[in-house]
């Protein structure tokens, strides 16, 4: 087929500007990289591969801040997913990915394909996906039927895909804030398990080896999805529906089983394997060739196609789902075909590894592309970004700290439990199969999900955490606090934190204030990861999360995985026995900037969240973990949104117990402070001295578990006395009430 425009017309009419390629980049490609004018197909490939989504051209300098190495890190960022050693030759493999733009436009398919994509990243490494988590951020539900619809569809999308695949969803987090009204966030994380010896790479190497296409056929869906994800939303873009892909989890299930069979049983036939994710065939093939230092020739006529008359450009950029690209040793093509045929899947040789370093495409008998592979993958112009510290932060640094003022702490607690961000999210998690494959020890609703590793005593804990409000008020401190929350969640389950993945969700990086926030918050994340010894092993960047100029809060999502060496010491979140002693771990200060109570009472957030002392927190959390492995801790629960009172209440929900707490030196407002790095734990009386001698001054005894369903808290200037059942009812019904509301 003829190219849609001649190279000269492209130079003249600049269609690439619509694909987010700048004139400067175009000139650089012409003058420095190709030394000629690129044709229509070639410039289409450049625009996709040089999009932020594929190239990280804006965020690269920021990503370099992260620590990525560690004793247990087998594979850091750069491959499909990060790989972390968990002893005995086994590894956890994990990564998170954002699908914010597609989910905002078409929530069901956007969410479903977000899950589908992250699963492929994990099984392409040779790992079997064993858990899915999500991190969902919606606009306010109240008086917002569109948002309620979008939330329902998003949940259904996440659920349908994972449920059909038979991979348990271990939860995650859901928050609500008006900053996500025009741009919801869907981050999906997948955790896989493998034997390290089975690890695969996305590379193509070895002259004459075949490039094979497996899985679903290619259609016109998702063309330019990567560039779509790399530009702002606006009313004008509402029509970009064609850029959203459509998912088929059944196809993916077959594809996963076939790929795992090939990798695990016939690895000598396979050279490399990669998911066709963002920017479809071009990104997977170009990245594999780059990784293998090879040239590649593809014949696009051989690509299985779902629609007639697709142009080379469309075939290369389609983001049709459930497809993988393999590099197969010459002579084993038929063997590979047979494996995929067993699963009723296409497996087609579409090209070869060739000499040299060029990327050559043929379509309908004509050569439509001949460019150096690296020009697509490595010669991207990094874009220096301007930074400005926003005035509101400079102002906040000089302002006196805000403190809440209220009559009754009991009433305030009830109102807080009714806030959708704090309320029970069973409405959501119940729609996900959390037990399939029968390894789930701790189901959604706890601080972290816990999965045993079958036929061992080991288990892995996992969680996702985002603190958009703190990051907005002070990006560096907010970044640190996000990691602290993850660490606390992982430790609360009895696990030792291993490493993190991230999704960096921000607004338009061309806005110097937003870029400043991006860099500062990543610095904060990096600082905390160094102290907590949790390197960043994989991740994803999602910029341009804006709608008509309104940016989301900077919302880096931390996905953390931890290791439990003995499932006997998985720590539950709920208290277990009357008369157990309740301790507060960590110091409480008047830290209300960005807190849930501030949002609730003020209708907005302001101020400067406190900077945490990372070393101190790290020290006592290490000791707490040690106490857990010695069997000294009966239950543990992290303090996050809503602070101490909310966590105390949550620790007795769904139990037969209550709490008798004495905080007579506490001002009542401190019940709702959100000072980071705190947990409540319960300890048997006979373990009191052993526990205290390990934790020292980091803990404070605050009360006892009782066998009456009452929450009693004595404070310096108030007394909270309320029955647990009424609190539990508010907390459990909040979200489903909102979803049913007619307003």
């Amino acid at each position, binding site marked *: 087929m003829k190219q849609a425009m001649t190279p000269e017309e492209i130079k003249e009419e600049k269609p690439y500007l619509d694909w987010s390629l700048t004139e400067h980049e175009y000139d650089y490609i012409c003058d420095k990289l190709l030394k000629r004018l690129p044709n229509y197909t070639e410039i289409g490939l450049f625009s996709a591969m040089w999009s932020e989504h594929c190239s990280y051209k804006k965020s690269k300098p920021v990503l370099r801040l992260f620590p990525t190495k560690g004793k247990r890190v087998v594979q850091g960022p750069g491959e499909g997913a990060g790989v972390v050693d968990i002893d005995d030759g086994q590894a956890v493999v994990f990564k998170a990915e954002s699908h914010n733009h597609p989910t905002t436009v078409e929530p069901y398919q956007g969410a479903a394909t977000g899950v589908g994509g992250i699963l492929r990243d994990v099984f392409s490494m040779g790992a079997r996906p064993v858990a899915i988590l999500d991190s969902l951020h919606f606009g306010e539900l109240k008086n917002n039927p569109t948002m309620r619809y979008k939330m329902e569809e998003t949940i259904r999308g996440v659920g349908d895909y994972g*449920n*059909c695949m038979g991979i348990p969803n271990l939860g995650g987090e859901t928050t609500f804030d008006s900053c996500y009204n025009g741009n919801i966030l869907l981050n999906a994380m997948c955790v896989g398990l493998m034997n390290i010896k089975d690890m695969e790479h996305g590379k193509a190497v070895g002259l004459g080896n075949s490039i094979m296409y497996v899985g679903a056929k290619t259609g016109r869906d998702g063309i330019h999805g990567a560039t779509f994800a790399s530009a702002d939303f606006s009313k004008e873009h509402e029509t970009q529906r064609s850029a959203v892909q459509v998912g088929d989890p059944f196809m993916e*299930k077959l594809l996963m089983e076939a790929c795992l069979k090939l990798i695990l049983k016939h690895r000598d036939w396979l050279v490399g394997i990669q998911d066709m994710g963002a920017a479809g065939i071009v990104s997977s093939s170009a990245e594999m060739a780059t990784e293998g230092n090879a040239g590649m020739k593809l014949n696009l006529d051989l690509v299985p196609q779902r629609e007639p008359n697709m142009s080379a450009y469309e075939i290369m950029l389609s983001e049709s789902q459930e497809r993988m690209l393999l590099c197969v040793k010459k002579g084993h093509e038929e063997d590979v075909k047979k494996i995929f045929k067993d699963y009723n899947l296409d497996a087609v040789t579409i090209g070869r590894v060739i000499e040299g370093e060029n990327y050559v495409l043929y379509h309908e008998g004509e050569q439509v592309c001949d460019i150096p592979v690296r020009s697509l993958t490595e010669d991207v112009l990094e874009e220096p970004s301007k930074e400005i510290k926003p005035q509101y932060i400079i102002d906040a640094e000089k302002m006196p700290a805000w403190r809440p003022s209220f009559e009754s702490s009991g009433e305030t607690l009830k109102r807080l439990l009714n806030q959708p961000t704090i309320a029970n999210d069973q409405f959501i998690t*119940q729609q996900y199969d959390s*037990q*399939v494959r*029968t390894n789930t020890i701790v189901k959604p609703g706890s601080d972290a999900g816990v999965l*045993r590793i079958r*036929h061992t005593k080991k288990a892995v804990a996992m969680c996702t955490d985002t603190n958009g409000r703190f990051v907005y008020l002070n990006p560096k401190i907010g970044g640190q606090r996000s990691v602290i929350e993850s660490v606390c969640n992982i430790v609360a389950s009895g696990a030792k934190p291993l490493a993190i993945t991230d999704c960096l969700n921000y607004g338009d990086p061309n806005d110097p204030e937003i870029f400043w926030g991006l860099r500062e918050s990543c610095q904060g994340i990096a600082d905390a990861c160094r102290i907590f010894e949790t390197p960043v092993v994989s991740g994803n960047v999602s910029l341009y999360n804006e709608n008509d100029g309104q940016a989301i809060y900077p919302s880096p999502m931390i996905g953390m995985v931890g290791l439990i060496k003995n499932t006997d010491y998985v720590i539950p979140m709920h208290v277990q026995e009357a008369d157990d002693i309740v301790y507060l771990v960590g110091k409480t200060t008047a830290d209300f900037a960005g807190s849930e109570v501030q949002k609730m009472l003020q209708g907005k957030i302001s101020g400067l969240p406190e900077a945490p002392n990372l070393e101190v927190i790290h020290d006592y959390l290490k000791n707490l973990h040690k106490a857990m492995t010695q069997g000294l801790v009966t239950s543990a629960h992290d303090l996050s949104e809503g602070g101490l009172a909310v966590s105390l209440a949550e620790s007795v929900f769904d139990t037969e117990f209550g709490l008798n707490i004495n905080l007579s030196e506490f001002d009542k407002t401190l019940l709702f402070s959100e000072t980071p790095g705190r947990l409540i734990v319960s300890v048997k009386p006979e373990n009191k001295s052993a526990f205290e001698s390990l934790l020292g001054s980091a803990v404070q005894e605050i009360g006892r578990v009782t066998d009456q369903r009452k929450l009693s808290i004595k404070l310096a200037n108030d007394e909270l006395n309320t029955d647990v059942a009424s609190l539990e009812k508010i907390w459990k019904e909040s979200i489903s009430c909102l979803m049913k509301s007619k307003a």
Partner: protein
Amino acid sequence: MKIAIVVFPGSNCDIDMYEALNTVCHAEAEYVSYRTKKLDGFDAVILPGGFSYGDYLRAGAIAQFAPVIPAIRKMAQDGKLVLGVCNGFQILTEMGLLPGALKRNNSLQFICETVKLQVKNNQIPFTTEYDQDQIIDIPIAHGEGNYYADDATLAELEKNNQIVFEYYQHNPNGSVKNIAGICNKEGNVLGMMPHPERAVEEVLGGTDGLPLFKSFLKSGVLA
């Protein structure tokens, strides 16, 4: 007792069943492909949960045409044990081995939770280790578990004591007469929406599913 676990394209609770039988109950179970045409040598066959053929069209609707189906039908006729859990139950109704149908949950949402069941018939080979009317906790995970049958069929089910499990106190999906599981008239074919294989180990939250497998395995020894 040799047990076949049928793997359809899209089955995903096959491994759960395999581990529950082999690892926990030390039974002898193996996977068989949906392409298998003969199940000779097996004493029992299990249709596990999952999304056979993506549950496209209607849960279980396409699986009923798989090559293995006639062999399953033959086992049922020969009086061998046939157990369908979740998607397996849906397939058994689509095949006509069990009456009625499974509609979408009345909430129109997928539901995963642990529910209480009451054992209504402890006289069939799958339930002898339970007490009559015993209340047990078993997880469910389905989007189409809302059992329906017309009045005549229900009267027949009741008359023949074919209702094996009922949801107790809380009906999660709107099923008629709170039905969670039924058997055929002879009692050798059982279909149920809840997942007993998810309730066989304390570490995973409970063991109320174990008696089902124990009953099942014991009956095999006697037979």
